[in-house]
């Protein structure tokens, strides 16, 4: 169930974008927000995956997951979209994107082709890898993502945790 959550987050943001125009044009009887959360200038489409750098081998590499064992490598990868223009924000738009993990130094991401290979067809994403330390606390795993917009200097924070469905670290 937890594994699905990242996709749900992604799907929610995608659906929000797709539905924005017709929903706003609809004959709403009173001012209303058609979405389950507040509106945002930027949307994050985030996945966490099992990395090839895992010391503890997962059943399948690159599988989407929100449950990681100590010794697994977590790959954070995401699109960040300007909700106003629909533009996928790249290295020219964002000066930094960092993953902030409790008790760990900020994890810097780079705007790279998927899988790290400069393939003409590979999608480009913001990504970074983190090897879960052998002594990292078990249980709920908290993190946020902070992106700094080059043009305005604004720092945008994304908290992907839905209450009650934390990512988790297991033995």
């Amino acid at each position, binding site marked *: 169930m937890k594994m699905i959550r990242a996709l749900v987050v992604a799907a929610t943001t995608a659906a929000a974008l797709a539905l924005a125009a017709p929903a706003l044009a609809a004959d709403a009887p009173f001012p209303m927000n058609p979405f389950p959360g507040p509106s945002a200038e930027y949307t994050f489409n985030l996945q966490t995956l099992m990395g090839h750098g895992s010391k503890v081998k997962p059943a399948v590499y690159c599988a989407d997951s929100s449950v990681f064992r100590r010794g697994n490598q977590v790959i954070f990868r995401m699109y960040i979209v300007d909700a106003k223009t629909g533009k996928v924000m790249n290295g020219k738009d964002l000066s930094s994107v960092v993953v902030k993990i409790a008790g760990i130094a900020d994890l810097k991401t780079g705007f790279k082709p998927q899988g790290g290979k400069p393939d003409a067809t590979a999608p480009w994403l913001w990504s970074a890898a983190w090897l879960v330390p052998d*002594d990292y606390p078990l*249980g709920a795993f908290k993190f946020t993502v902070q992106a700094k917009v080059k043009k305005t200097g604004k720092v945008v924070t994304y908290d992907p945790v839905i209450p009650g469905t934390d990512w988790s670290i297991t033995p």
Partner: protein
Amino acid sequence: MITTSASHLGPRVRWTGLTALVGLVWFLLPAQALATPQPVTPPQIPGIAGLPGPVAAAAVPSPQGLKLLKATPDTGPPGTPFVLTGSGLPPSTDLDITWSTATKQYIMDVVPDSVDFYGRKFSPTTVVLAKGRTDASGNLSLNLKFPQDYGALHDIYAVAGGVQLAKGGVLVERTYSVSPLKGAIGTEITIKLNGLGWLGYMDTVAVIWDNRYAGFLSSVTTRGQATATIRAAGPPGKHTLELVPASATTPFLNITQSAVGYLGFKRYTFTVTKDAGPPPTKVVWPLDLAPTSSERTTFRTATIAGVNAKVSTGSGTVGSKVQLTASGLAPGAAVIQWNTAVGTRTGAGYSNSYTPLANVTIPASGNLDTTLTVPDDVGGWHTIEVLQGGATKASVPYRIDQSLFQGGINGTKFKRGDRITIHFKGVGFTEMDNILAVTVDNAYIGYVCGFFSAGDTVLDMVASGEPGTHLVDFYPTIYKQQKGGNDIWYGATPFLTYRTDYPLLALGYRLPAYHFAYTIVK
């Protein structure tokens, strides 16, 4: 002088007059809940701990980010001592050390013609496990113990002023005890588990005997503890007993590949030393626990002001005698009525039913004192009513307990191909007492139901297997769950922890397990 007549009518005999009219109205109405499904407080069970600390006040993560707490060791069974350390915290500050856990309850709905099962509810709960204080440098060090609590992963936070400053976590591992590990066919094997978790997949453990599913243990309301007994099935030699996590009560055979792979499983070898013949039939009842709810099926009427009524005993088996006494009644005719449920869940439906037990004449004193025979009917809670002029004057609950009919099994020695019958009375009508799950030699084979047959329940099977002693066991089980999304938890399979963790215990039901044996002879 009380005169009594027309007693002992079966529940399917219809009635006349106003009583019939009332009954007809009930029959035509759809079964409706008296209340919405509710979590029901579990009974107090000896040896089962409560929450491991006072409930903590709500807290939010520090906007500056969380520091880490280190637990050493961070894995172990309940009771494991550990040291909790942290640094970089505010100096000389009092802290609450909080522990994430849960409370769990069964959700049930008591309606006139059933008790419906709606599954399990868990409520995440955070308690204060300990108090601590940082030193002048902002360091924390505390010697603590894993409490007796649900197992699996627990988050630990250091909290000051409603702000979570640091986070740690531990794994409370489950422990297993199986004893003995050798004995004759029929030897009772006690399985004790501790540290089962509170989430689905974590509070249920399936028992597998020689690759055959024997049933499940649960700790829904027993805070991680579960105890059950199975019997050693033959033939003599080595047998494998496995304890594996279960989801919808059935075994999850590759749990180690799941997101909760750390739960693991356990395997034992049991040596059956000999075949000493069939052990005697045995009926094992649940613990005698005080119910926490007074809601009763069919208990739809109340005794009116000025009338007192009681029965000599609140429960018994079909055919037993019960003395009904009352005072404050009006002199004249009265009807003593039995409220029950009839029908089927196979399609035609079911409803309440009302049957006269006796016509009596109340003397000038207004007192009633009569002895009734408990009808041959479905088990569970019923109501005995005293009616005068078509109105209910008194109403008392009465519970029919299950019983064996003529010793239950029709013999102890059979040849292959012979028919074996096992016969019960008083099997119930709710979703949690209308069927019994059946195993043969620790292999689950199905269930028997007693609702449509007014509690009369017969297993008709063919003797099979190798010559020697074979076992047949019956356990309480849940027939159906009304709702639950992805947390469906039933399966009509043997509920081995029926003595302590069964949902209906909270409502005052007592449902036994039955153990039979027979020998196949050449």
